[in-house]
């Protein structure tokens, strides 16, 4: 790698004091879920590590991941990581355009082959050879494959890149596909959410920059530090859930009292994310705190498991309001009707037989 200033030096030249730097290290360590004694490691890594080149792609997405990252994370993250330090290519922020932009991208990919970090925002359409998303005359499918070749690791930002999100919702007209289903031979970190929390994104990226290794991932490829618990496990309304105190409609007394939103379709019990702990907009709030049930935006297929305001999803093929309970109840009713018909018919058909047997039994019984 070229002789470039260390991360720490970059931070200092941008006008931050050593104190600011240390505060930043403590902050980011906490968010990465590393114990306090690990702050020293982060500081040391920042002081000794050089820039890690980063390319950030945007495919089928709405840029809410970038927005989330820029808005709510620590100023040092945005300024240093994105601006000065590493970001070689990103469609939405770079000043360069056209050939210039492409040149930077390909130079980075060539020069830092095997070393650069590839961040992907958005899903990749695969139907019709991927024509639904093209940049500079290439399909996103080709771009992903080409860029992944030389990448050290890949981060899939947001639900689009990690599980397809709304583009992949039934009937998935463009064949939108998450990155881990396209690239198989590289370490991939899924950071789902629509968008993911800015601090979580910062935590993941700083972890990679400082430790140079993949954080511990769960079965779905998500960093355990942020996705090992469900919203429901750390939700501040949880005592209401356990006590069976539920909001029944959005403007009832229970809603005013802040009871649990389970019956309003809250997907907190099935959603793995850090919202209830880290919260949003610098820890101000998160959906449930604002009175709205969790819609499960970081879970696979959350669009197809609606409606949002109903606990049970609608049963595929039976209209939006029909749940598994409706189907079960209908099948149950048919069963009971069948049994009743059967019982009647059995008695009619066997009447003679039974009567004869009763007669015989009477005789044998000596009556």
């Amino acid at each position: 790698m070229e002789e470039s200033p260390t991360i720490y030096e970059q931070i200092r030249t941008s006008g931050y004091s050593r104190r600011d730097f240390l505060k930043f290290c403590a902050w980011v360590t906490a968010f990465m879920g590393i114990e306090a004694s690990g702050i020293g490691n982060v500081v040391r890594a920042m002081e000794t590590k050089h820039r890690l080149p980063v390319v950030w792609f945007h495919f089928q997405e709405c840029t809410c991941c970038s927005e989330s990252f820029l808005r709510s994370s620590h100023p040092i993250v945005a300024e240093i990581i994105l601006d000065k330090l590493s970001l070689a290519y990103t469609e939405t922020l770079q000043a360069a355009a056209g050939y210039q932009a492409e040149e930077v991208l390909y130079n980075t990919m060539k020069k830092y082959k095997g070393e650069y970090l590839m961040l992907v925002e958005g899903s990749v359409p695969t139907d019709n050879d991927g024509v639904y998303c093209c940049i500079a005359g290439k399909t996103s499918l080709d771009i992903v494959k080409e860029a992944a070749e030389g990448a050290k690791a890949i981060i899939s930002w947001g639900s689009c890149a990690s599980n397809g999100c709304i583009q992949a919702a039934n009937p998935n007209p463009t064949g939108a596909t998450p990155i881990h289903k396209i690239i198989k031979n590289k370490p991939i970190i899924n950071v789902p959410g629509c968008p993911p929390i800015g601090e979580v994104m910062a935590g993941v990226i700083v972890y990679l920059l400082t430790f140079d290794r993949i954080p511990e991932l769960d079965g779905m490829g998500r960093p355990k530090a942020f996705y090992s618990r469900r919203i429901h496990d750390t939700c501040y309304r949880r005592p209401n859930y356990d006590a069976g105190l539920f909001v029944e409609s959005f403007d009832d007394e229970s809603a005013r009292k802040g009871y649990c939103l389970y019956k309003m379709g809250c997907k907190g019990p099935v959603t793995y994310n850090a919202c209830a702990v880290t919260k949003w907009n610098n820890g101000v709030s998160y959906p449930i705190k604002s009175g709205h049930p969790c819609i499960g935006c970081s879970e696979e297929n959350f669009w197809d498991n609606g409606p949002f305001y109903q606990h049970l999803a609608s049963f595929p093929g039976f209209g939006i309001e029909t749940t598994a309970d409706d189907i079960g109840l209908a099948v149950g009713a048919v069963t009971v009707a069948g049994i009743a018909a059967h019982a009647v018919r059995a008695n009619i058909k066997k009447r003679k037989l039974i009567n004869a047997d009763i007669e015989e039994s009477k005789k044998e019984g000596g009556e």
Partner: protein
Amino acid sequence: MEDQKIKRVYVWEIPVRIYHWLNALVVVTLAVTGYLIGNPLAIQSSAEAYLGYWFGTVRFIHFVAAFIFFFNFLFRIYWGFAGNKYADWKNFIPYTKKYIRECYDVLKLDILHIKVKPFISVGHNALAGLTYFLTFLAFLFQSITGFGMYSAMSDSFFPKLFAWVVPFLGGDFAVRQWHHLMMWFFIIFAVVHVYIVFYHDYVERRGVLSSMAGGWKFIEKDKPT
């Protein structure tokens, strides 16, 4: 006044009977508590949360019953190898022509109300055996999805063995939906099962209904078992 025509057969040994009734108890418990978990009662109250825990208790009962259910089920599989011939695992898997023929015979008896010869088995009839095999698959499915969900809220090693289930089925959303839907299989099975037992008790007159209590069935001596 002894009846020369009737022979007694000891079909269900004590372990099978205990398994059966324990299973009945926990499945009903699981279905009731499971239904409540999916559709909590609308108890409007002005109480503060710290004063109550009824929903937590419902879930707790579900989980306790779930453990009993699972290990009871494992025991029954074991007994399919250790028990008498009526409890044997072979009763549940249709691998012979005779087995399949008997399935048809039972269907004729049950649906067309035609008496069939030769007489159907003393233990489980073939069709019943096959149905129970399907319920065993349902038990397995319900246990796997249940413990899969449970693994996220437990640190102990046993539920953790099922942590693969959630990614395998594509997330908690899907697992929960399947688990909930499967409840209806259990409910409908129970309804049909109870009816069929009454019906066979009525038309066969071999004491099926009481056999799961005392263990004995009664057959006509000149009929093959």
